[in-house]
């Protein structure tokens, strides 16, 4: 996802700064993403997200214990607290005697999968409805936005609870598990994306290039995909990041209410069991702190990423970066000076 966004930004920002045909080799050799000036926020958030992703997807490859492997009894303390300390089970065991770190890795993986699935579903539905409503207009817009507003007004947690209860009591394991939960969350969380996308799409629809496309005989679906959608891409990426975060949190809320994915681990379910077996009251911090911290990291990392993406896409929000402005000015001056010293004509000749 970052690849799409970065190339879009490069096309916009990279152009005017470096005139073509300049003899400045080092600048050309620089990879494209270096010109992005991500800033520390972006790196912090990417670092947090990268850490959690590595824990969820790479960790299990190296960790010797599985999440369904009984290695101890109820809330065995981390082995480094024993005398003599060992590093066998760094985070001890949880209520069923499974290794907490192994369960945590599996939980984080499932939570991220639920988030990715649900977030993608929500953004796809939201962008589709928003673009169609905003571009087509008329009664289609009235109808779609009326529907969106009604769904938006009903608190999504209520619909989530009601649908999950119905799904839990069906006999279909597919609907009770990770995928079913992701579907439910995705299908209920698109409305605000649709509403925001509609506003942008109807402003794009009045631009001149749309008229050009119409005159050249392009059909409506093709215009929506090729001429409207690209202008919303940066917004869609940011909405996707937010949907990802809120889907992961929705999963954990539902799981803690007892409506989590059946037969699968998730961060919310880990907390559910920890609360059910009194981990907090008995002081078994290794059972409940790891999922709590991972959830907070996911939520903070993604929201922070969203706000820094906002700054990348929307330069007006960049505030108080005098150092960067000065740097950019110095760079421009430098290129201008070089340009004056050896004009590009000579280089080409």
């Amino acid at each position: 996802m970052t690849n799409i966004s970065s190339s879009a930004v490069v096309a916009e920002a990279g152009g005017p700064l470096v005139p073509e045909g300049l003899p400045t080799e080092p600048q050309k050799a620089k990879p494209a993403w270096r010109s992005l000036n991500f800033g520390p926020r972006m790196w912090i958030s990417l670092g947090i997200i990268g850490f959690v992703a590595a824990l969820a997807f790479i960790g299990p490859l190296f960790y010797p214990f599985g999440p369904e492997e009984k290695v101890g009894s109820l809330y065995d303390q981390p082995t480094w607290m024993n005398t003599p300390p060992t590093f066998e089970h760094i985070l001890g065991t949880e209520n069923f005697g499974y290794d907490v770190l192994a369960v945590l890795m599996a939980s984080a993986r499932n939570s991220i999968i639920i988030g990715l699935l649900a977030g993608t579903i929500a953004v796809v539905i939201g962008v589709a409805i928003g673009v169609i409503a905003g571009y087509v207009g008329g009664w289609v817009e009235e109808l779609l936005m009326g529907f969106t507003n009604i769904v938006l007004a009903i608190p999504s947690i209520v619909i989530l609870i009601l649908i999950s209860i119905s799904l839990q009591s069906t006999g279909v394991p597919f609907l009770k598990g990770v995928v079913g939960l992701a579907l439910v969350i995705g299908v209920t969380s698109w409305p605000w994306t649709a509403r925001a996308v509609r506003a942008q799409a109807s402003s794009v629809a009045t631009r001149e290039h749309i008229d050009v496309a119409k005159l050249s005989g392009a059909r409506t679906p093709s215009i929506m995909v090729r001429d409207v959608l690209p202008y919303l891409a940066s917004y869609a990426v940011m909405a996707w990041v937010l949907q990802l975060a809120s889907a992961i949190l929705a999963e954990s809320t539902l799981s803690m209410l007892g409506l989590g994915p059946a037969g699968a681990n998730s961060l919310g379910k880990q907390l559910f069991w920890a609360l059910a077996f009194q981990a907090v009251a008995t002081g078994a911090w290794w059972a409940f702190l790891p999922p709590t911290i991972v959830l907070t990291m996911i939520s903070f990392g993604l929201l922070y990423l969203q706000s820094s993406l906002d700054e990348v896409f929307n330069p007006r929000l960049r505030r108080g970066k005098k150092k960067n402005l000065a740097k950019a000015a110095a760079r421009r001056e430098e290129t201008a000076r070089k340009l004056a010293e050896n004009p590009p004509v000579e280089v080409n000749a």
Partner: protein
Amino acid sequence: MGLRRYLANKTVWYLGALVVAVVLNFVLPRLIPGNPVDVLVSKMGQGGLSSEAQQRTYEAFMREFGLDKPIWDQFVLYITGVFHGNFGASFSFYPTPVSSLIAQSVPYTLALQLPAIVLGWIIGNLLGAIAAYKGGSWDKSVFTTALLFNSTPYYCLSIILLYVFGVVLGWFPVGGAYSLGSSPEWSWAFFSDAITYWYLPFASLVLINIGGQAVGMRSMAIYELGSDYVNYSRSLGIGDRKMTGYIFRNAMLPQITGLALSIGTMVGGALITELVFSYPGMGSLLFGAISSNDYPVIQAVTLIITVAVLVANYMVEILYGFIDPRIRASKSGEK
């Protein structure tokens, strides 16, 4: 004319949303295969009832819950019941009416949420406005802290606070709403006991609210600070004090909306915090109902959450029609 049309338009939409919500609330639990009465009777059957007696209780329950009637009649019964504040009887605490279970739980939820929302709103807005106005390192530290609290899931903060201040330091009791010996009553002794149980869940909610409001207010105020009317008034030489007044009033409008909306989410906004602290509010009621398939209670709780949110949203839209002149000027409302 514009205002009247706006109000009518909003009223129609919110009534539509209410109808959809009520229908969903009625239909979704009934899609569940199997009959809730089966569960109830089989649970009683474990007590050693004869099959004939079971059959009789089954029929009695079917009549009691109106499940022997066609679905349309059930719906009419449900609606008329709801309008009279009658949500039927709870399955798991039969024959306690659902409305009395809710009446027991709501005060605890309100006692936590109302002060947390109002206090969090006031402190958060002040902090956000000061951060935006002062800028510099003040802004940076306030913003980062607020962002951290804003993006922490509220139940995660609850768990951490409970563990640190309740378990490790032992400053506060670990769970529940009052000590084992006492019972809820209007007395000073009960109040002073209950408040020690109230501090921690309240603190976890108020911190999250402060964070959210401060982040929102800061960005609103920064936006206003850079707007044309501010620059223009500055060039006219209008004093700082008067300018702050203008900025504050303009930045406040969305914040007031935020307050009204969060009061709407009061009932459903902190369900998990109550679970973490085993606080006997609506969250714990819902949790218990879900784990025991107590559909009348689940339906009542979700309906109350929905209606609270819808009413708050509707009030905000109506209030906006009166406060914000731009809405009256525009031909049709916001899509």
